Protein backbone atom coordinates (compact mmCIF):
# COMPACT_ATOMS: atom_id res chain seq x y z
CA UNK A 1 0.00 0.00 0.00
CA UNK A 2 1.28 3.46 -0.81
CA UNK A 3 -0.15 6.93 -1.15
CA UNK A 4 -0.64 6.74 -4.90
CA UNK A 5 -3.08 3.89 -4.53
CA UNK A 6 -6.74 4.76 -5.03
CA UNK A 7 -8.06 1.47 -3.77
CA UNK A 8 -6.65 -1.27 -1.57
CA UNK A 9 -8.42 -4.51 -0.90
CA UNK A 10 -6.74 -6.19 2.05
CA UNK A 11 -7.37 -9.85 2.85
CA UNK A 12 -11.01 -9.70 1.80
CA UNK A 13 -12.95 -12.82 2.72
CA UNK A 14 -16.64 -13.26 1.94
CA UNK A 15 -18.36 -16.33 3.24
CA UNK A 16 -21.87 -17.26 2.17
CA UNK A 17 -22.90 -19.79 4.78
CA UNK A 18 -19.54 -21.49 4.70
CA UNK A 19 -18.91 -21.13 0.97
CA UNK A 20 -15.96 -18.80 0.43
CA UNK A 21 -16.89 -16.53 -2.48
CA UNK A 22 -13.75 -14.50 -1.82
CA UNK A 23 -10.79 -15.91 0.06
CA UNK A 24 -8.14 -13.50 1.37
CA UNK A 25 -8.21 -11.44 -1.77
CA UNK A 26 -5.62 -8.67 -2.06
CA UNK A 27 -5.71 -6.11 -4.80
CA UNK A 28 -4.30 -2.59 -5.19
CA UNK A 29 -5.24 -0.03 -7.81
CA UNK A 30 -3.26 3.07 -8.72
CA UNK A 31 -4.89 6.33 -9.66
CA UNK A 32 -5.63 6.50 -13.39
CA UNK A 33 -5.06 2.82 -13.92
CA UNK A 34 -7.09 0.61 -16.25
CA UNK A 35 -7.33 -2.89 -14.85
CA UNK A 36 -8.98 -5.92 -16.33
CA UNK A 37 -10.22 -8.68 -14.06
CA UNK A 38 -10.86 -12.11 -15.54
CA UNK A 39 -11.59 -15.49 -14.11
CA UNK A 40 -13.69 -18.58 -14.66
CA UNK A 41 -17.35 -18.71 -13.59
CA UNK A 42 -17.68 -18.67 -9.83
CA UNK A 43 -14.25 -17.14 -9.32
CA UNK A 44 -15.81 -14.30 -7.33
CA UNK A 45 -15.63 -11.52 -9.91
CA UNK A 46 -19.06 -10.06 -9.22
CA UNK A 47 -18.76 -10.57 -5.45
CA UNK A 48 -15.54 -8.59 -5.67
CA UNK A 49 -17.54 -5.64 -7.11
CA UNK A 50 -20.30 -6.18 -4.55
CA UNK A 51 -17.79 -5.78 -1.73
CA UNK A 52 -16.36 -2.53 -3.08
CA UNK A 53 -19.80 -0.98 -3.74
CA UNK A 54 -21.22 -1.98 -0.35
CA UNK A 55 -23.77 -4.50 -1.56
CA UNK A 56 -22.01 -7.32 0.27
CA UNK A 57 -20.26 -6.82 3.59
CA UNK A 58 -17.02 -8.77 3.77
CA UNK A 59 -16.75 -11.34 6.54
CA UNK A 60 -13.16 -10.26 7.01
CA UNK A 61 -10.74 -7.75 5.58
CA UNK A 62 -10.62 -4.10 4.75
CA UNK A 63 -11.48 -1.95 1.73
CA UNK A 64 -9.58 1.36 1.64
CA UNK A 65 -10.68 3.91 -0.94
CA UNK A 66 -8.98 7.33 -1.03
CA UNK A 67 -7.69 6.58 2.47
CA UNK A 68 -11.14 5.81 3.88
CA UNK A 69 -12.57 2.48 4.83
CA UNK A 70 -15.63 1.51 2.81
CA UNK A 71 -16.66 -1.44 4.93
CA UNK A 72 -20.05 -0.89 6.58
CA UNK A 73 -20.98 2.17 4.51
CA UNK A 74 -24.30 2.28 2.68
CA UNK A 75 -24.32 1.86 -1.11
CA UNK A 76 -25.39 5.41 -1.87
CA UNK A 77 -22.72 6.85 0.44
CA UNK A 78 -20.03 4.82 -1.33
CA UNK A 79 -21.41 5.99 -4.69
CA UNK A 80 -21.18 9.61 -3.50
CA UNK A 81 -17.58 9.06 -2.38
CA UNK A 82 -16.80 8.36 -6.03
CA UNK A 83 -17.34 4.70 -6.81
CA UNK A 84 -19.50 4.09 -9.88
CA UNK A 85 -20.73 0.76 -11.09
CA UNK A 86 -22.04 -0.67 -14.31
CA UNK A 87 -23.93 -3.91 -13.98
CA UNK A 88 -23.53 -7.12 -15.91
CA UNK A 89 -26.83 -6.88 -17.76
CA UNK A 90 -27.67 -3.29 -18.59
CA UNK A 91 -29.51 -1.72 -15.66
CA UNK A 92 -31.06 1.51 -16.83
CA UNK A 93 -34.42 3.06 -16.07
CA UNK A 94 -36.44 1.70 -18.99
CA UNK A 95 -39.52 3.84 -18.40
CA UNK A 96 -37.49 7.05 -18.54
CA UNK A 97 -36.04 8.64 -21.65
CA UNK A 98 -32.33 8.60 -22.44
CA UNK A 99 -32.06 12.20 -21.33
CA UNK A 100 -33.93 11.60 -18.07
CA UNK A 101 -31.64 8.68 -17.30
CA UNK A 102 -28.59 10.86 -17.79
CA UNK A 103 -30.14 13.72 -15.81
CA UNK A 104 -30.38 11.48 -12.77
CA UNK A 105 -26.77 10.47 -13.09
CA UNK A 106 -25.23 13.96 -13.55
CA UNK A 107 -27.37 15.70 -10.91
CA UNK A 108 -25.48 16.85 -7.83
CA UNK A 109 -26.14 17.05 -4.97
CA UNK A 110 -28.41 14.03 -5.01
CA UNK A 111 -30.83 15.37 -2.40
CA UNK A 112 -34.64 15.58 -2.58
CA UNK A 113 -34.51 19.37 -2.21
CA UNK A 114 -32.27 19.71 -5.22
CA UNK A 115 -34.41 17.37 -7.31
CA UNK A 116 -37.71 19.07 -6.54
CA UNK A 117 -36.27 22.20 -8.16
CA UNK A 118 -37.43 21.68 -11.73
CA UNK A 119 -34.51 23.46 -13.39
CA UNK A 120 -31.39 21.48 -14.02
CA UNK A 121 -28.13 23.43 -14.09
CA UNK A 122 -26.78 24.52 -17.49
CA UNK A 123 -23.42 22.87 -17.02
CA UNK A 124 -25.20 19.61 -16.29
CA UNK A 125 -27.23 19.93 -19.50
CA UNK A 126 -23.99 20.50 -21.40
CA UNK A 127 -22.51 17.44 -19.74
CA UNK A 128 -25.53 15.40 -20.88
CA UNK A 129 -25.05 16.61 -24.47
CA UNK A 130 -21.38 15.69 -24.32
CA UNK A 131 -22.13 12.22 -22.96
CA UNK A 132 -24.80 11.53 -25.56
CA UNK A 133 -22.38 12.40 -28.32
CA UNK A 134 -19.67 10.17 -26.89
CA UNK A 135 -21.95 7.13 -26.89
CA UNK A 136 -23.75 8.00 -30.16
CA UNK A 137 -27.17 8.42 -28.59
CA UNK A 138 -27.74 12.06 -29.56
CA UNK A 139 -30.66 11.17 -31.86
CA UNK A 140 -32.27 9.09 -29.16
CA UNK A 141 -32.49 11.84 -26.53
CA UNK A 142 -36.23 11.60 -26.03
CA UNK A 143 -36.66 7.89 -26.73
CA UNK A 144 -37.65 5.61 -23.89
CA UNK A 145 -34.52 3.86 -22.68
CA UNK A 146 -36.50 0.61 -22.82
CA UNK A 147 -36.83 0.96 -26.61
CA UNK A 148 -33.07 1.02 -27.18
CA UNK A 149 -31.18 -1.93 -28.61
CA UNK A 150 -29.07 -4.03 -26.28
CA UNK A 151 -25.85 -2.34 -27.33
CA UNK A 152 -27.32 1.12 -26.93
CA UNK A 153 -28.50 0.19 -23.44
CA UNK A 154 -24.97 -0.91 -22.53
CA UNK A 155 -23.62 2.39 -23.76
CA UNK A 156 -26.30 4.41 -22.03
CA UNK A 157 -25.32 2.73 -18.78
CA UNK A 158 -21.67 3.50 -19.42
CA UNK A 159 -22.63 7.13 -20.14
CA UNK A 160 -24.59 7.22 -16.87
CA UNK A 161 -21.54 5.87 -15.09
CA UNK A 162 -19.30 8.55 -16.59
CA UNK A 163 -21.93 11.19 -15.78
CA UNK A 164 -21.60 10.37 -12.09
CA UNK A 165 -17.97 11.53 -12.36
CA UNK A 166 -16.66 8.71 -10.22
CA UNK A 167 -12.98 8.40 -9.31
CA UNK A 168 -13.31 4.66 -9.66
CA UNK A 169 -15.43 3.01 -12.34
CA UNK A 170 -16.33 -0.62 -11.96
CA UNK A 171 -17.52 -2.08 -15.23
CA UNK A 172 -19.00 -5.57 -15.24
CA UNK A 173 -19.04 -7.34 -18.62
CA UNK A 174 -19.59 -4.25 -20.78
CA UNK A 175 -19.45 -6.11 -24.08
CA UNK A 176 -21.73 -9.06 -23.33
CA UNK A 177 -24.07 -9.37 -26.29
CA UNK A 178 -22.40 -6.68 -28.40
CA UNK A 179 -21.32 -6.96 -32.02
CA UNK A 180 -17.60 -6.98 -32.84
CA UNK A 181 -17.74 -3.40 -34.03
CA UNK A 182 -19.46 -2.28 -30.86
CA UNK A 183 -16.98 -4.24 -28.77
CA UNK A 184 -14.10 -2.37 -30.40
CA UNK A 185 -15.79 0.98 -29.83
CA UNK A 186 -16.42 0.08 -26.19
CA UNK A 187 -12.78 -0.91 -25.70
CA UNK A 188 -11.65 2.43 -27.13
CA UNK A 189 -14.14 4.27 -24.95
CA UNK A 190 -12.91 2.58 -21.77
CA UNK A 191 -9.28 3.17 -22.70
CA UNK A 192 -9.98 6.85 -23.24
CA UNK A 193 -11.63 7.07 -19.84
CA UNK A 194 -8.63 5.68 -17.97
CA UNK A 195 -5.89 8.12 -17.15
CA UNK A 196 -8.35 10.65 -15.85
CA UNK A 197 -10.43 7.96 -14.17
CA UNK A 198 -9.51 4.66 -12.64
CA UNK A 199 -11.34 1.86 -14.39
CA UNK A 200 -11.82 -1.78 -13.48
CA UNK A 201 -13.25 -3.96 -16.22
CA UNK A 202 -14.53 -7.46 -15.64
CA UNK A 203 -15.03 -9.66 -18.64
CA UNK A 204 -14.68 -13.10 -20.17
CA UNK A 205 -13.97 -11.94 -23.69
CA UNK A 206 -10.21 -12.45 -24.26
CA UNK A 207 -10.12 -10.47 -27.48
CA UNK A 208 -11.72 -7.55 -25.72
CA UNK A 209 -9.31 -7.75 -22.77
CA UNK A 210 -6.39 -7.88 -25.16
CA UNK A 211 -7.62 -4.73 -26.85
CA UNK A 212 -7.75 -2.92 -23.53
CA UNK A 213 -3.99 -3.37 -23.37
CA UNK A 214 -3.91 -3.11 -19.60
CA UNK A 215 -2.78 -4.96 -16.54
CA UNK A 216 -4.84 -8.05 -15.90
CA UNK A 217 -5.74 -9.72 -12.61
CA UNK A 218 -6.85 -13.32 -12.83
CA UNK A 219 -9.25 -14.46 -10.12
CA UNK A 220 -9.77 -18.07 -9.22
CA UNK A 221 -11.67 -19.52 -6.28
CA UNK A 222 -12.01 -16.15 -4.64
CA UNK A 223 -8.40 -15.13 -4.69
CA UNK A 224 -5.97 -13.41 -7.06
CA UNK A 225 -4.13 -16.08 -8.97
CA UNK A 226 -1.85 -13.91 -11.01
CA UNK A 227 -1.34 -10.30 -12.06
CA UNK A 228 0.46 -8.79 -15.01
CA UNK A 229 0.19 -7.87 -18.64
CA UNK A 230 -1.80 -10.05 -21.02
CA UNK A 231 1.44 -11.59 -22.33
CA UNK A 232 2.65 -12.51 -18.86
CA UNK A 233 -0.53 -14.11 -17.72
CA UNK A 234 -0.97 -16.03 -20.93
CA UNK A 235 2.34 -17.72 -20.25
CA UNK A 236 1.61 -18.37 -16.59
CA UNK A 237 1.21 -22.06 -15.98
CA UNK A 238 -1.37 -21.73 -13.18
CA UNK A 239 -3.56 -19.48 -15.33
CA UNK A 240 -3.37 -21.85 -18.24
CA UNK A 241 -4.42 -24.72 -16.00
CA UNK A 242 -7.49 -23.11 -14.49
CA UNK A 243 -8.70 -20.76 -17.13
CA UNK A 244 -7.17 -20.46 -20.55
CA UNK A 245 -6.83 -24.13 -21.19
CA UNK A 246 -3.77 -25.66 -22.77
CA UNK A 247 -3.12 -24.53 -26.31
CA UNK A 248 -3.98 -27.19 -28.83
CA UNK A 249 -1.00 -29.31 -29.65
Amino acid at each position, binding site marked *: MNNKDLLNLIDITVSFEGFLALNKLNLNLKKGELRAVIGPNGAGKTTFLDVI*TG*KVKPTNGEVIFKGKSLVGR*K*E*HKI*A*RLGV*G*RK*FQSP*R*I*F*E*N*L*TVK*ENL*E*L*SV*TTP*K*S*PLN*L*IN*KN*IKDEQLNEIDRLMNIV*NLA*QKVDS*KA*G*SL*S*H*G*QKQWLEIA*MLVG*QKPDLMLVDEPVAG*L*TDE*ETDLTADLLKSLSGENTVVVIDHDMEFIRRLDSNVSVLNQGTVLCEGTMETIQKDKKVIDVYLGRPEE
Partner: protein
Amino acid sequence: MSLSKIKFDKKIVLSFWIILIALIIAAPTLLPVFRLNLLGRYLSLSIVALGVDLIWGYTGLLSLGQGIFFALGGYCAAMYLQITSSSEFPNNIPEFFALYGVEKLPFFWEPFRSPFFTFFAIWIIPALVAGLIGFLVFRNRIKGVYFSILTQASLLVFFNFFNGQQKLINGTNGLKTDVTQLFGQMVGSESMQRIFFWITAILVIAAWFFAKWVVKGRFGNILIGIRDDEPRVRFTGYNPVIFKTIIFSIAGGLAGISGALYTVQSGIVSPQFMTVPFSIEMVIWVAVGGRGTLLGAILGAVFINYAKSLVSEALPASWMFIQGGLFILVVTALPEGVLGWIQGDGPRNLLQRYGLKRKIETYPSLEVNNKEGNNE
Protein backbone atom coordinates in the same frame (compact mmCIF):
# COMPACT_ATOMS: atom_id res chain seq x y z
CA MET B 1 -44.70 -0.99 -20.56
CA SER B 2 -45.00 2.65 -19.80
CA LEU B 3 -47.26 3.78 -17.04
CA SER B 4 -46.53 7.47 -17.24
CA LYS B 5 -45.17 10.23 -19.39
CA ILE B 6 -47.33 9.15 -22.31
CA LYS B 7 -48.10 11.99 -24.63
CA PHE B 8 -51.79 12.66 -24.36
CA ASP B 9 -53.52 14.95 -26.82
CA LYS B 10 -53.61 18.40 -25.24
CA LYS B 11 -56.96 19.34 -26.74
CA ILE B 12 -58.63 16.28 -25.25
CA VAL B 13 -57.20 17.11 -21.85
CA LEU B 14 -58.29 20.73 -22.08
CA SER B 15 -61.85 20.02 -23.21
CA PHE B 16 -62.14 17.33 -20.56
CA TRP B 17 -61.23 19.79 -17.86
CA ILE B 18 -63.59 22.45 -19.18
CA ILE B 19 -66.47 19.99 -19.11
CA LEU B 20 -65.50 18.76 -15.66
CA ILE B 21 -65.25 22.26 -14.18
CA ALA B 22 -68.57 23.20 -15.77
CA LEU B 23 -70.14 20.12 -14.22
CA ILE B 24 -68.73 20.96 -10.81
CA ILE B 25 -70.11 24.50 -11.04
CA ALA B 26 -73.50 23.27 -12.21
CA ALA B 27 -73.71 20.29 -9.88
CA PRO B 28 -75.53 21.98 -6.93
CA THR B 29 -78.35 23.12 -9.23
CA LEU B 30 -78.50 19.92 -11.28
CA LEU B 31 -78.36 17.37 -8.50
CA PRO B 32 -80.70 16.86 -5.55
CA VAL B 33 -79.02 17.50 -2.19
CA PHE B 34 -78.70 13.78 -1.47
CA ARG B 35 -76.83 13.14 -4.73
CA LEU B 36 -74.75 16.27 -4.40
CA ASN B 37 -73.65 15.13 -0.97
CA LEU B 38 -72.71 11.70 -2.35
CA LEU B 39 -70.72 13.28 -5.17
CA GLY B 40 -68.91 15.51 -2.69
CA ARG B 41 -67.97 12.49 -0.61
CA TYR B 42 -66.67 10.60 -3.61
CA LEU B 43 -64.68 13.60 -4.78
CA SER B 44 -63.05 13.76 -1.36
CA LEU B 45 -62.15 10.06 -1.71
CA SER B 46 -60.34 10.88 -4.95
CA ILE B 47 -57.77 12.83 -2.91
CA VAL B 48 -56.74 9.74 -0.96
CA ALA B 49 -56.66 7.89 -4.29
CA LEU B 50 -54.19 10.48 -5.63
CA GLY B 51 -51.93 9.64 -2.71
CA VAL B 52 -52.23 5.91 -3.45
CA ASP B 53 -51.27 6.62 -7.06
CA LEU B 54 -48.18 8.57 -5.93
CA ILE B 55 -46.90 5.79 -3.70
CA TRP B 56 -48.09 2.79 -5.69
CA GLY B 57 -48.37 3.92 -9.32
CA TYR B 58 -45.16 5.95 -9.31
CA THR B 59 -43.02 4.57 -6.50
CA GLY B 60 -44.21 0.96 -6.43
CA LEU B 61 -45.18 0.94 -2.75
CA LEU B 62 -48.45 -0.95 -2.41
CA SER B 63 -49.85 0.34 0.88
CA LEU B 64 -52.92 -1.41 2.26
CA GLY B 65 -53.03 0.92 5.24
CA GLN B 66 -54.02 4.30 3.84
CA GLY B 67 -57.15 4.10 5.99
CA ILE B 68 -54.98 5.00 9.01
CA PHE B 69 -54.13 8.44 7.64
CA PHE B 70 -57.59 8.92 6.18
CA ALA B 71 -59.17 8.29 9.59
CA LEU B 72 -56.62 10.45 11.43
CA GLY B 73 -57.58 13.42 9.25
CA GLY B 74 -61.25 12.67 9.88
CA TYR B 75 -60.74 12.46 13.64
CA CYS B 76 -58.84 15.77 13.70
CA ALA B 77 -61.73 17.54 11.95
CA ALA B 78 -64.38 15.84 14.09
CA MET B 79 -62.60 16.60 17.38
CA TYR B 80 -62.51 20.29 16.54
CA LEU B 81 -66.19 20.35 15.56
CA GLN B 82 -67.25 18.43 18.68
CA ILE B 83 -65.30 20.60 21.04
CA THR B 84 -66.46 23.91 19.59
CA SER B 85 -70.07 22.74 19.81
CA SER B 86 -69.97 21.48 23.40
CA SER B 87 -70.78 24.64 25.35
CA GLU B 88 -74.23 23.47 26.51
CA PHE B 89 -73.08 20.01 27.63
CA PRO B 90 -71.92 19.14 31.19
CA ASN B 91 -68.37 20.33 31.97
CA ASN B 92 -68.32 22.02 28.56
CA ILE B 93 -66.97 18.89 26.94
CA PRO B 94 -68.47 16.78 24.15
CA GLU B 95 -71.63 14.95 25.13
CA PHE B 96 -70.38 11.37 24.83
CA PHE B 97 -67.84 11.82 27.63
CA ALA B 98 -70.70 11.90 30.15
CA LEU B 99 -71.71 8.36 29.14
CA TYR B 100 -68.39 7.02 30.36
CA GLY B 101 -68.16 9.26 33.44
CA VAL B 102 -65.31 11.34 32.03
CA GLU B 103 -65.33 14.83 33.52
CA LYS B 104 -62.10 16.27 32.30
CA LEU B 105 -61.20 16.65 28.64
CA PRO B 106 -58.32 14.30 27.70
CA PHE B 107 -55.16 16.35 27.19
CA PHE B 108 -54.77 15.65 23.47
CA TRP B 109 -58.16 17.24 22.79
CA GLU B 110 -57.03 20.63 24.12
CA PRO B 111 -55.18 21.90 21.03
CA PHE B 112 -58.23 21.11 18.91
CA ARG B 113 -60.04 24.08 20.46
CA SER B 114 -58.06 26.14 17.98
CA PRO B 115 -59.33 26.22 14.36
CA PHE B 116 -55.85 27.31 13.34
CA PHE B 117 -54.24 24.23 14.92
CA THR B 118 -56.92 21.95 13.45
CA PHE B 119 -56.42 23.35 9.97
CA PHE B 120 -52.80 22.21 10.05
CA ALA B 121 -53.34 19.08 12.15
CA ILE B 122 -55.68 17.61 9.51
CA TRP B 123 -52.84 17.07 7.10
CA ILE B 124 -49.67 17.41 9.19
CA ILE B 125 -50.52 14.75 11.79
CA PRO B 126 -51.29 12.03 9.18
CA ALA B 127 -48.20 13.10 7.21
CA LEU B 128 -46.00 12.80 10.30
CA VAL B 129 -47.43 9.42 11.29
CA ALA B 130 -46.96 8.18 7.71
CA GLY B 131 -43.43 9.58 7.65
CA LEU B 132 -42.54 7.82 10.90
CA ILE B 133 -44.03 4.45 9.88
CA GLY B 134 -42.51 4.81 6.42
CA PHE B 135 -39.04 5.70 7.66
CA LEU B 136 -38.86 2.72 10.02
CA VAL B 137 -40.08 0.33 7.34
CA PHE B 138 -38.00 1.69 4.46
CA ARG B 139 -34.84 2.00 6.54
CA ASN B 140 -35.00 -1.74 7.16
CA ARG B 141 -35.42 -2.32 3.43
CA ILE B 142 -38.79 -3.96 3.80
CA LYS B 143 -40.48 -3.91 0.42
CA GLY B 144 -42.86 -5.67 -1.91
CA VAL B 145 -45.43 -7.94 -0.35
CA TYR B 146 -43.85 -7.58 3.11
CA PHE B 147 -44.44 -3.86 2.96
CA SER B 148 -48.09 -4.43 2.03
CA ILE B 149 -48.59 -6.87 4.89
CA LEU B 150 -46.92 -4.53 7.33
CA THR B 151 -49.12 -1.60 6.34
CA GLN B 152 -52.19 -3.78 6.72
CA ALA B 153 -51.03 -4.93 10.15
CA SER B 154 -50.51 -1.29 11.19
CA LEU B 155 -54.03 -0.58 10.00
CA LEU B 156 -55.38 -3.29 12.28
CA VAL B 157 -53.40 -1.94 15.22
CA PHE B 158 -54.86 1.52 14.71
CA PHE B 159 -58.34 0.10 14.18
CA ASN B 160 -58.25 -1.86 17.42
CA PHE B 161 -56.87 1.07 19.36
CA PHE B 162 -59.51 3.54 18.17
CA ASN B 163 -62.24 0.93 18.49
CA GLY B 164 -61.42 0.25 22.12
CA GLN B 165 -60.91 3.77 23.50
CA GLN B 166 -64.41 4.86 24.54
CA LYS B 167 -63.13 7.24 27.18
CA LEU B 168 -60.78 9.00 24.80
CA ILE B 169 -62.53 9.19 21.42
CA ASN B 170 -65.87 7.39 21.86
CA GLY B 171 -64.52 4.05 20.61
CA THR B 172 -66.54 2.12 18.12
CA ASN B 173 -69.33 4.75 18.01
CA GLY B 174 -67.05 7.32 16.45
CA LEU B 175 -67.50 11.07 16.52
CA LYS B 176 -70.56 12.67 14.95
CA THR B 177 -70.16 15.91 13.08
CA ASP B 178 -73.53 16.53 11.39
CA VAL B 179 -75.19 18.10 14.45
CA THR B 180 -72.15 20.21 15.36
CA GLN B 181 -71.75 23.89 14.56
CA LEU B 182 -69.17 25.51 12.35
CA PHE B 183 -69.09 29.32 12.17
CA GLY B 184 -72.62 29.46 13.56
CA GLN B 185 -74.09 27.02 11.05
CA MET B 186 -75.08 23.40 11.45
CA VAL B 187 -72.48 21.22 9.68
CA GLY B 188 -75.15 18.85 8.38
CA SER B 189 -77.28 21.65 6.93
CA GLU B 190 -77.95 21.97 3.24
CA SER B 191 -76.12 25.25 2.80
CA MET B 192 -73.05 23.98 4.65
CA GLN B 193 -73.01 20.80 2.57
CA ARG B 194 -73.07 22.88 -0.60
CA ILE B 195 -70.06 24.85 0.64
CA PHE B 196 -68.25 21.62 1.52
CA PHE B 197 -68.91 20.39 -2.00
CA TRP B 198 -67.22 23.46 -3.49
CA ILE B 199 -64.28 23.23 -1.09
CA THR B 200 -63.87 19.56 -1.95
CA ALA B 201 -63.98 20.19 -5.70
CA ILE B 202 -61.38 22.95 -5.40
CA LEU B 203 -59.14 20.82 -3.19
CA VAL B 204 -59.34 17.85 -5.57
CA ILE B 205 -58.09 20.03 -8.39
CA ALA B 206 -55.43 21.59 -6.14
CA ALA B 207 -54.31 18.13 -5.00
CA TRP B 208 -54.19 16.99 -8.61
CA PHE B 209 -51.95 19.89 -9.62
CA PHE B 210 -49.80 19.34 -6.54
CA ALA B 211 -49.37 15.64 -7.38
CA LYS B 212 -48.53 16.54 -10.98
CA TRP B 213 -45.93 18.97 -9.74
CA VAL B 214 -44.40 16.34 -7.45
CA VAL B 215 -44.00 13.75 -10.21
CA LYS B 216 -42.72 16.22 -12.77
CA GLY B 217 -39.03 16.32 -13.54
CA ARG B 218 -36.20 14.60 -11.77
CA PHE B 219 -37.99 14.05 -8.47
CA GLY B 220 -40.73 12.07 -10.20
CA ASN B 221 -38.14 10.24 -12.29
CA ILE B 222 -36.37 9.09 -9.14
CA LEU B 223 -39.70 7.73 -7.86
CA ILE B 224 -40.13 5.78 -11.11
CA GLY B 225 -36.53 4.66 -10.81
CA ILE B 226 -37.19 3.35 -7.30
CA ARG B 227 -40.25 1.49 -8.57
CA ASP B 228 -38.38 -0.12 -11.47
CA ASP B 229 -34.89 -0.74 -10.07
CA GLU B 230 -34.19 0.40 -6.54
CA PRO B 231 -30.61 -0.93 -6.24
CA ARG B 232 -29.67 1.03 -9.37
CA VAL B 233 -30.95 4.20 -7.73
CA ARG B 234 -28.76 3.44 -4.74
CA PHE B 235 -25.63 2.83 -6.80
CA THR B 236 -26.27 6.10 -8.64
CA GLY B 237 -25.81 7.84 -5.29
CA TYR B 238 -29.39 8.48 -4.21
CA ASN B 239 -30.77 7.36 -0.88
CA PRO B 240 -34.13 5.68 -1.68
CA VAL B 241 -35.13 5.70 2.01
CA ILE B 242 -35.48 9.49 2.03
CA PHE B 243 -37.44 9.63 -1.21
CA LYS B 244 -39.79 6.84 -0.17
CA THR B 245 -40.35 8.44 3.23
CA ILE B 246 -41.16 11.80 1.62
CA ILE B 247 -43.64 10.39 -0.87
CA PHE B 248 -45.28 8.14 1.73
CA SER B 249 -45.63 11.15 3.98
CA ILE B 250 -47.16 13.21 1.15
CA ALA B 251 -49.65 10.42 0.48
CA GLY B 252 -50.46 10.35 4.21
CA GLY B 253 -51.11 14.09 4.22
CA LEU B 254 -53.39 13.80 1.20
CA ALA B 255 -55.23 10.95 2.91
CA GLY B 256 -55.75 13.16 5.97
CA ILE B 257 -57.29 15.98 3.92
CA SER B 258 -59.44 13.43 2.16
CA GLY B 259 -60.60 11.93 5.44
CA ALA B 260 -61.51 15.32 6.93
CA LEU B 261 -63.58 16.28 3.88
CA TYR B 262 -65.26 12.88 3.84
CA THR B 263 -66.07 13.14 7.54
CA VAL B 264 -67.80 16.52 7.38
CA GLN B 265 -69.86 15.36 4.40
CA SER B 266 -70.84 11.96 5.74
CA GLY B 267 -71.55 13.33 9.24
CA ILE B 268 -69.43 10.92 11.26
CA VAL B 269 -65.95 9.55 11.65
CA SER B 270 -65.54 6.12 13.20
CA PRO B 271 -63.06 3.25 13.32
CA GLN B 272 -64.95 1.89 10.29
CA PHE B 273 -62.67 4.16 8.24
CA MET B 274 -59.83 1.88 9.29
CA THR B 275 -61.30 -1.43 8.23
CA VAL B 276 -59.25 -3.63 5.93
CA PRO B 277 -61.68 -3.73 2.96
CA PHE B 278 -61.91 0.05 2.75
CA SER B 279 -58.15 0.48 2.36
CA ILE B 280 -58.09 -2.25 -0.27
CA GLU B 281 -60.90 -0.49 -2.14
CA MET B 282 -58.67 2.59 -2.39
CA VAL B 283 -56.15 0.48 -4.25
CA ILE B 284 -58.88 -0.89 -6.53
CA TRP B 285 -59.99 2.62 -7.51
CA VAL B 286 -56.46 3.42 -8.63
CA ALA B 287 -55.95 0.08 -10.37
CA VAL B 288 -59.17 0.48 -12.35
CA GLY B 289 -58.59 4.15 -13.15
CA GLY B 290 -55.00 3.63 -14.18
CA ARG B 291 -51.82 3.46 -12.14
CA GLY B 292 -49.32 6.26 -12.65
CA THR B 293 -51.79 8.53 -14.42
CA LEU B 294 -53.04 10.64 -11.45
CA LEU B 295 -56.20 11.58 -13.37
CA GLY B 296 -57.09 7.89 -13.46
CA ALA B 297 -57.00 7.78 -9.67
CA ILE B 298 -59.50 10.65 -9.42
CA LEU B 299 -61.83 9.19 -12.04
CA GLY B 300 -61.53 5.69 -10.59
CA ALA B 301 -62.46 6.88 -7.09
CA VAL B 302 -65.44 8.96 -8.24
CA PHE B 303 -66.90 6.59 -10.83
CA ILE B 304 -66.49 3.37 -8.87
CA ASN B 305 -68.05 4.89 -5.77
CA TYR B 306 -70.89 6.42 -7.74
CA ALA B 307 -71.50 3.11 -9.45
CA LYS B 308 -71.41 1.48 -6.03
CA SER B 309 -74.22 3.67 -4.70
CA LEU B 310 -76.33 3.31 -7.86
CA VAL B 311 -75.90 -0.46 -7.99
CA SER B 312 -76.52 -0.85 -4.29
CA GLU B 313 -79.81 1.03 -4.60
CA ALA B 314 -81.02 -1.12 -7.50
CA LEU B 315 -79.61 -4.52 -6.54
CA PRO B 316 -78.70 -4.59 -2.86
CA ALA B 317 -75.85 -6.95 -1.90
CA SER B 318 -74.63 -7.42 -5.45
CA TRP B 319 -72.01 -4.70 -5.37
CA MET B 320 -69.22 -6.81 -3.89
CA PHE B 321 -69.49 -9.24 -6.80
CA ILE B 322 -69.43 -6.45 -9.34
CA GLN B 323 -66.46 -4.78 -7.67
CA GLY B 324 -64.57 -8.06 -7.53
CA GLY B 325 -65.38 -8.77 -11.16
CA LEU B 326 -64.26 -5.29 -12.16
CA PHE B 327 -60.94 -5.78 -10.39
CA ILE B 328 -60.35 -9.15 -12.05
CA LEU B 329 -61.27 -7.70 -15.44
CA VAL B 330 -58.84 -4.83 -15.05
CA VAL B 331 -55.99 -6.98 -13.77
CA THR B 332 -56.34 -9.48 -16.61
CA ALA B 333 -57.47 -7.37 -19.56
CA LEU B 334 -56.35 -3.83 -18.74
CA PRO B 335 -53.30 -4.10 -16.48
CA GLU B 336 -52.63 -0.39 -16.87
CA GLY B 337 -56.17 0.59 -15.92
CA VAL B 338 -58.77 2.31 -18.06
CA LEU B 339 -56.93 5.61 -18.46
CA GLY B 340 -53.59 3.86 -18.90
CA TRP B 341 -55.17 1.82 -21.69
CA ILE B 342 -56.57 4.91 -23.41
CA GLN B 343 -53.30 6.83 -23.11
CA GLY B 344 -51.30 3.87 -24.37
CA ASP B 345 -51.82 1.93 -27.56
CA GLY B 346 -55.12 0.41 -26.44
CA PRO B 347 -57.64 2.19 -28.70
CA ARG B 348 -55.39 1.93 -31.77
CA ASN B 349 -54.83 -1.79 -31.23
CA LEU B 350 -58.56 -2.30 -30.84
CA LEU B 351 -59.34 -0.44 -34.05
CA GLN B 352 -56.64 -2.37 -35.88
CA ARG B 353 -58.02 -5.65 -34.66
CA TYR B 354 -61.35 -4.90 -36.30
CA GLY B 355 -59.70 -3.50 -39.43
CA LEU B 356 -60.82 0.04 -38.75
CA LYS B 357 -57.34 1.45 -38.76
CA ARG B 358 -54.25 0.59 -40.75
CA LYS B 359 -51.41 -1.10 -39.00
CA ILE B 360 -48.14 0.74 -38.56
CA GLU B 361 -45.71 -0.74 -41.02
CA THR B 362 -42.43 0.43 -39.64
CA TYR B 363 -40.53 -1.73 -37.26
CA PRO B 364 -39.27 0.28 -34.30
CA SER B 365 -35.65 -0.69 -34.69
CA LEU B 366 -35.58 0.14 -38.41
CA GLU B 367 -35.62 3.88 -37.95
CA VAL B 368 -33.87 6.11 -40.40
CA ASN B 369 -30.56 7.64 -39.32
CA ASN B 370 -30.08 4.86 -36.84
CA LYS B 371 -26.60 3.51 -37.27
CA GLU B 372 -27.05 0.90 -34.58
CA GLY B 373 -30.31 -0.43 -35.95
CA ASN B 374 -28.94 -3.87 -36.73
CA ASN B 375 -28.07 -4.91 -33.22
CA GLU B 376 -30.79 -7.29 -32.38
